[in-house]
């Protein structure tokens, strides 16, 4: 038990290690912070689903360096992203842009949610409409109801228990 706890604690302490090498880092902490933020959002083009900051691939190293060169040259974050997209396409962005081609990606899930919600609402309303208007009493039920009511009015009559 104690050992499991210790292992869990150790796992919690293990922070994800970035591939950014000390030699790559910029002197200016503000620029370096921006470079990190951009690096986390750029996808390494040979590693499927890793950011360039997480990857040790050669290309990721080159891309990290290019990001820093652009920042030093005075580019805005958006200009750096544009620089990468011009070379590697939208693939390089871990967060896909909102375009006609990605409409399904962005709106598919919310649209399904809305459709499901509307369907649920419609069925719920229909069900309530049917349950709120009870069927009129039949002849037999009416007769029984009048018997019960007359019994209640006449205290001398012994109360009839059911069940």
């Amino acid at each position: 038990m104690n050992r499991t706890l210790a292992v869990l604690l150790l796992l919690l302490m293990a922070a994800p290690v970035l591939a950014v090498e000390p030699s790559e880092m910029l002197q200016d902490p503000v620029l370096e912070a921006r470079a990190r933020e951009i690096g986390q959002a750029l996808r390494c083009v040979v590693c499927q689903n890793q950011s360039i900051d997480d990857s040790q691939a050669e290309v990721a190293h080159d891309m990290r360096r290019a990001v820093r060169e652009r920042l030093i040259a005075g580019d805005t974050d958006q200009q750096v992203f544009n620089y990468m997209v011009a070379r590697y396409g939208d693939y390089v962005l871990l967060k896909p842009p909102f375009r006609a081609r990605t409409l399904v990606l962005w709106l598919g899930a919310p649209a399904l949610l809305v459709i499901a919600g509307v369907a649920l609402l419609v069925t719920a309303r229909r069900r309530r409409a049917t349950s709120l208007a009870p069927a009129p009493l039949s002849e037999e039920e009416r007769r029984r109801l009048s018997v019960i009511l007359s019994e209640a009015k006449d205290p001398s009559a012994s109360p009839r228990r059911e069940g």
Partner: protein
Amino acid sequence: MSRRLLFLLPLLTLALMAGFFAWSLLAGRDPAAIGSVMVGRPAPPINLPALEEGHPPLTDALLKTGKPVLVNFFASWCAPCLAEHPLFMRLKERDGAVIIGIAWKNKRTEALAWLDRLGNPFRTAGLDLEGKAGLDWGLSGVPETYAIDGNGVVRLHFRGPLTERDLTDSVLPFLKGTTK
């Protein structure tokens, strides 16, 4: 009646999914393919020192000769480059293709020794020691090959080694000018 139809919904969903999976498998779709944004655009600039010392540096002029040119990024440490190398030798010798080589992240001496040993298919070769040209060309690794038309526009981009099939299907028709 409509309630009974509702029971068909899961079945329909399953059929849709199966259809999508079948299409993904059979249509040769490669979800790992990263595509290329270079095709159809003017080739990125080239400004590199020559691989062989004393030779003139590589410039954009090489790509705007009015004739199609192939640009091949390679490295002596890259095994797939070794695999595609004979195809480039054949393209040069049999088909008279103009091929420009760019040694990517490769030491000058090692790249030269590699070409000495295997044969040099390149009209001229440059050295991209730090991978800066590679980045401008949207390179993801070596080998990659670009076909550039006489106007300096990229027409084909192959990621990974060229194959016989690539040659017959696209490179040779491109060199003969029979593709659009």
